[in-house]
């Protein structure tokens, strides 16, 4: 299974969780509530599911608040990604043979 790297990034005093896809980074805001940006990131993750199974792994899990948030979030996200992928297989939205 492919492992995609993720990291907590800071820009303009805001924190983001960046997940590095083959097509470029997906950015999820942590310090701001921005549901549309989260949804947009989810759309890209679903599109990525079509290309094959993957798991997201956080680089350098620190003790700071945002590292803990990102770690927890990615843990849950990985589980949910597998579930969505199973469902997509069932609906034949992805091929059965892709791993």
């Amino acid at each position: 299974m492919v492992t995609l790297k993720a990291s907590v990034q800071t820009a303009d005093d805001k924190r983001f969780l960046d997940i590095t896809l083959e097509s470029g980074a997906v950015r999820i805001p942590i310090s701001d509530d921005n549901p549309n940006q989260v949804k947009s990131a989810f759309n890209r993750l679903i599109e990525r599911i079509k290309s094959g199974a993957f798991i997201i792994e956080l680089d350098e899990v620190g003790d700071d608040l945002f590292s803990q948030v990102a770690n927890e979030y990615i843990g849950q996200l990985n589980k949910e990604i597998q579930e969505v992928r199973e469902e997509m297989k069932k609906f034949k939205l992805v091929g059965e043979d892709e791993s």
Partner: protein
Amino acid sequence: MRIDIHTHTARCKSGDAPTREISAPDFCEKILSTDVGIVAITNHNFFDLEQYRVIERGLGASAQVWPGVELDIVEEGVRGHLIVIVSPARSEDFSAAVTALTGGSTPDGFFGTIEQVLAHFEPLEPIYVAHYRQKKPNLSENALDMLLAGTRYPQRVIKEVTNSISAGIYISHGHPSIYGSDVQDWSDYDEIARNLPELRLPVDSFEHFCFLLEKDQATINTALDRKTVEEVVLQPFEDESFLKLKVFNDINVVFGAKGTGKSCILRAIARHYSENGLDARVYEPGSDRLNEIFDIRGKDLQINLVPYGVHYCSDEIEAVRAAKEAEVTSLSKYVTYFASKSTNRNAKLVLLKDIDPEEDGPSKRDFLDAVEAVEKTSAYLTFLESNDAARTVLTEPERDELLRLLSAFLKALQAKAWSTFVAWKEVALLKAAVTLFRKEVERKTGTPAKPTTTGFRRYGANRNKIAGSVAAILKSIDTAIPPIIATIGTLGKNKGTLELRTEFYFQNGNVTDGELLSLGGPKKSTQKKFAAQVRLIHGRVYSDDLFQCIARLREIEDVEGIKTVYELVLFKKYFALDGRAYEPSSGEASMVMLQEELARDADVYILDEPERSLGNEYISDVIVPLINERARAGKRVFISTHDANIAVRTLPYSSVYRSHDHDGYKTYVGNPFTNRLLNTSDESDHLDWRIVSMRTLEGGPAAFGERGRIYGHT
């Protein structure tokens, strides 16, 4: 049933082709493979009694074979051929008579005279069939006169001509005429037999045939009465006078000049049968009604899409239209949770809240799969036990073994269903407990609980549901439905067969044919916009602007009229010739409407001047055979006509002739077999059927020219 009064089985004369010779078994096989029910063997100057008997036995009751001979006659130096046919009961005497006449001559060397023929055959009460005019070598007029003068049965002297047209022409001039195959090559006989004269009245025997030739009234009436006859009393006219008609479950024709009340009689006949509970209506040609009759605008057109593998997609369309975005979990909840991780002692003791619950979706899916397997296996077992075919195809031990295995399989599946149910509930209950405890700790301590989901699963499931629905809709509307092609009828030999083609298409967003009509109701523009928008949504399911696309779908005018893919069906219904669209002329429209009427399954057909707008050739080649076919099937057919093609060529069992002169209206009834028409009000007033029909009907002489193929009025 057809008759062939002139066949050869032997190559008797040196000029005879070898292909004329046929063995008795082959002869029988040939005759039985055709519609020929009466055949006369007429070899040149020769009769083979032994072969005749073999053939007679070979044909049995399936066909009659009459003994005959084709003699070379010379009178005043002119040679001609004369066929003599006698009753099968006299075959032995006939053989002796032929031998006596031909003496020691070979078939090649024999020549006889009329006097000799009469002397040898007259005691056998034969039928004489003389080669006439174009049928070479023909008997001279003088020889024919001698024959007619010398025979006791002048009505049994028939003129053999070359074909049906000649026979008809001679009949119309009062000469009893017929034609036979005079077969030259037996390999062509199947084709030749199709054009031999057809017997309109049943002929039981040679003697019966002779009675019909002599127009014996009793014999004709007996033959006619083999059909179902009924007497109907009508009140067709305004003067409320009664008209009593003898009608047959065969062809009954009403003819006469325009304005003599023929249509009134037909309407009265329709009323009579309707009142007696039969489906009876008067067919009147009307080319302008063609499109209406065949529902070209598709007013009553429907199609069941299931046989084409099309899913109607009502749930899917509703799902797309009603789709809403699934919300995601705000990340601030995570931040808040970690920022204010509870320090409450009691809260810390509740460890359950800190468990990361599993998602219950996969275990639920496992359980549902197992349940489906249990249900289907169980249903299959029940089917095996109850279905006779399934039960009997195996031996008892085999069946027991199969049932044992399947029962064990079912038991294992039931165990699997139970274990997956337990696993699912375990996860679900734990998840529910974690969620509950988190909420309770949050409520009691005032600190937020850790979110249980990012919302990705819910979000993805929502998008997947939309994707599945849209894919199902597109799969349905991308299905090609083959056209439905119905044969309407023939437009005549040269033109071909008219078809009614109904083409169905789904509006898939790209269909632009202006000739297509909407089947399901919504406007074509609505259909097109809807399909195009669904296709757009399909490409945007995992895009940020998905719900803008869905909103635009909802905004399409009258879109609520599209509840299933049936409302996206377009159709085109049109007439076609050779696969191409074709607009029938008014005459052609009449043709197909009449064929449609005659193709209807009914007991009574009432046709008012069906010939209107139709050509003679079409009436002869298509309509007359159709009418005859209905009559053969025992249907009552009533036809009012001005057209001799119909009145003469169908040889109606009953004819009603209406006339009008200075004495008023008169009604005559009769038939072509007796050649008489009797005034229904004055028995002393009778007319000649042939002369009246020749005079009254359009195309009379021409019609007679072709009716010779049908025996009955010789």
